[in-house]
């Protein structure tokens, strides 16, 4: 057991904090939440410049070859600042490619992902909003040269900035395929912007006979289902880690507010009722933080721990939005205003309760892992 950061992780944290404090302040977060795609695109360009998309891509394919545990340190900081950048999306799809893809596809895409020229976002949820790996909203016909895809993928993060979507399709031979679909200015792809409480760009994609070459197929059959399940698990741990960072930031800002706000001639944070709210928030934040990093660490090994991944998102989904509601109670009326930034965190926490599977979804997975 080691709850400390490695030298590399310390470096990641320090540089992330510096950059994000400077470049992803509340004004940026609000602009992106209001739909300013230019601000989001500029921020992403700077993030690419820093090399963050390359962090976990293997060295063999032009990345830095760092572990998922190292990435988690960055994700925590992104969560703490609500940074609207698709670092998690890029890292998890790259990881699935790396683990399931054919060598040629990896050699083609991974170096471009590391360079930021390619951004692949997960698109595996259909109209029924289910994260089940056997469910998909898209079908595909096999042709001599590849797949022709029709259907709908909903709740796709950063689809407007992505060059590709990683999609699970139902093929006409009654099989599943996981495939990298080009979506950047692709004929037949329509993007419908959603107004999502996370404050990040989220879209629904409709595919109307969109072609993906055979070489873009990552996995088929049960392998594709396994890849989809792992994609969801990886994404859920990324979200849990971001939510852990978010929780830390909310605890910190609530401490700062209640220690300063005076009523009855003393800081409201000196009242036991308020202190106990904050103590409970601190406990929840630490629990999610530990579970998330323990899960992320398991991804640094071969494969990952199904149990740890499920626990991370169960705890994050169950605790962090509640933590935010308690923060509102501690802030009193000022926290109820549009002007105060707290609701940005609350919205994100609320939106991500369900992203990559809600608590009930992951409890079902954990229950099975427990032999139930």
């Amino acid at each position, binding site marked *: 057991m080691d709850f400390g950061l490695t030298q590399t992780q310390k470096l990641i944290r320090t540089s992330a904090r510096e950059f994000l404090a400077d470049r992803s302040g509340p004004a940026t977060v609000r602009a992106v939440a209001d739909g300013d795609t230019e601000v989001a695109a500029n921020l992403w360009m700077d993030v690419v410049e820093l090399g963050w998309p390359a962090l976990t891509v293997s060295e063999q394919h032009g990345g830095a070859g760092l572990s998922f545990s190292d990435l988690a340190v960055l994700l925590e900081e992104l969560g703490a600042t609500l940074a609207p950048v698709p670092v998690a999306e890029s890292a998890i799809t790259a990881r699935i490619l790396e683990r399931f893809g054919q060598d040629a596809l990896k050699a083609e895409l991974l170096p471009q992902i590391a360079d930021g020229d390619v951004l692949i976002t997960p698109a595996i949820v259909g109209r029924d909003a289910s994260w089940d790996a056997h469910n998909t909203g898209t079908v595909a016909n096999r042709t001599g040269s590849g797949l022709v895809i029709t259907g709908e993928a909903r709740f796709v993060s950063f689809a407007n900035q992505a060059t590709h979507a990683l999609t699970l399709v139902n093929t006409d031979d009654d099989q599943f395929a996981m495939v990298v679909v080009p979506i950047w200015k692709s004929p037949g792809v329509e993007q419908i912007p959603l107004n999502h409480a996370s404050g990040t760009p989220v879209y629904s994609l409709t595919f109307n006979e969109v072609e993906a070459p055979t070489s873009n197929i990552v996995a088929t059959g049960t392998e594709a289902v396994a890849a989809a399940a792992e994609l969801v698990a990886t994404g859920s741990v990324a979200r849990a880690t971001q939510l852990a960072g978010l929780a830390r930031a909310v605890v910190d800002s609530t401490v700062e507010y209640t220690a300063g706000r005076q009523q009855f001639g003393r800081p409201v944070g000196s009242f036991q009722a308020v202190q106990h709210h904050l*103590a409970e928030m601190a406990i929840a934040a*630490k629990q999610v933080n530990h579970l998330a990093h323990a899960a992320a660490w398991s991804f640094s090994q071969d494969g990952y721990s199904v149990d740890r991944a499920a*626990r991370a998102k*169960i705890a994050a989904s169950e605790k962090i939005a509640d933590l935010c509601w308690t923060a509102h109670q501690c802030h009193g009326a000022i926290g109820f205003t549009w002007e105060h930034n707290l609701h940005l965190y609350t919205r994100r926490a609320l939106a991500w309760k369900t992203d990559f599977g809600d608590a009930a979804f992951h409890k079902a997975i954990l*229950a099975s892992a427990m032999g139930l």
Partner: protein
Amino acid sequence: MRFDFTPEESDFRRKLSAFLDGALPADWHGPADESRDDHWALNQQIKKGLADRGWFVMSWPTEYGGADSSPMMNTIFAEEMAYRRAPGHDRFGTRMLGPTLMRFGSDSQRAEHLGAIARGEVQWCQGYSEPNSGSDLASLQTRAVLDGDNFIVNGAKIWTSLAHRADMMFMLVRTDPDAAPHKGISLLLVDMKTPGIQVLPIINMAGVHSFNQVVFDDVRVPQANLVGDLNDGWRVGMTVLNFERSGIDYAAWARAALEELVDYVKNDDSLVSTVKTNPEVRGKLASLNTEIEAARLLCYDVAWRQGQGEVPSAEASISKVAGTEIYAKVLDYGTELLGMYGALEPGSEQAELQGNFLKMRLFATSGPILAGTNEIQKNIIAQRGLNLPRAPRR
């Protein structure tokens, strides 16, 4: 960051577990009830077995017969003992008084007591709480007045676990009634056979004689039994409490209980096995598993920080709150899941899982109360951990 154990730690856990396989009766379910002679004998036997293997005081420095083991190893020791509900982990002597004597005791006190503790030959109990001093411990009133070479002690201690089995007590007494509450307290070592000491049993709500009231009537305690300086007992005595505040026992008890419950639900012969396919039941069991793992990680975090030379105060409080809360929750759910059987007392005809879930649930009421109530722990978390301002003192 890493979340696995070193080979040395895993090896130790395996060895301890194998020792307990042999030391505990084959049908052992616990929990131990030390007021029963057979359980007390088992307690003594296991203590000796642990001492023979060098584990009983492995947390101590080598110069006192310990192994100078890391806080993580000590946590694993406590966890494994609790997970098996094994008696014989003597916190009072090995974890509280021992380290206190090493730091504050006189040479003769160390010579007299440390060896006996290390060999598992002596049972200590802790005389802190009083009928009118619980969370507000510094208000304690038991008086000790110096008379020649002896203190004369008068007063009463309460909620004293194992006083009915103890040879010795370390106790806080008021030695200067005129000083501020924290400044007039001293720590004394008292032989429980001294004339004037009366141990009155208190039966807890689970029906077990686990603690006592101890009355002191002109009890003569040699001046040489004062630990540290006169009137410095608050500081000396708080060292003890730093060792007391951890959630690892509770997290381990919770894990054992949940596993028992899951096994029970999975077993086709179980009377309530039909609940296995109920998604709500599956979800609830998964949720408890998650909370237990979180509590466990919080305890490992405390151990890791101690290993880094920190004195993690708020973190220890967090682990205590999380551990005690999840333990009660698991037992709550266990009694609920057992349906009508959940209401059967141990020993009842037709009781399932020995009626243990009910008994343990009743017992677990004490977790959030003892060793500093969880409300006090939350004050510590807020004030020491988050640096929130203290309430003005009246």
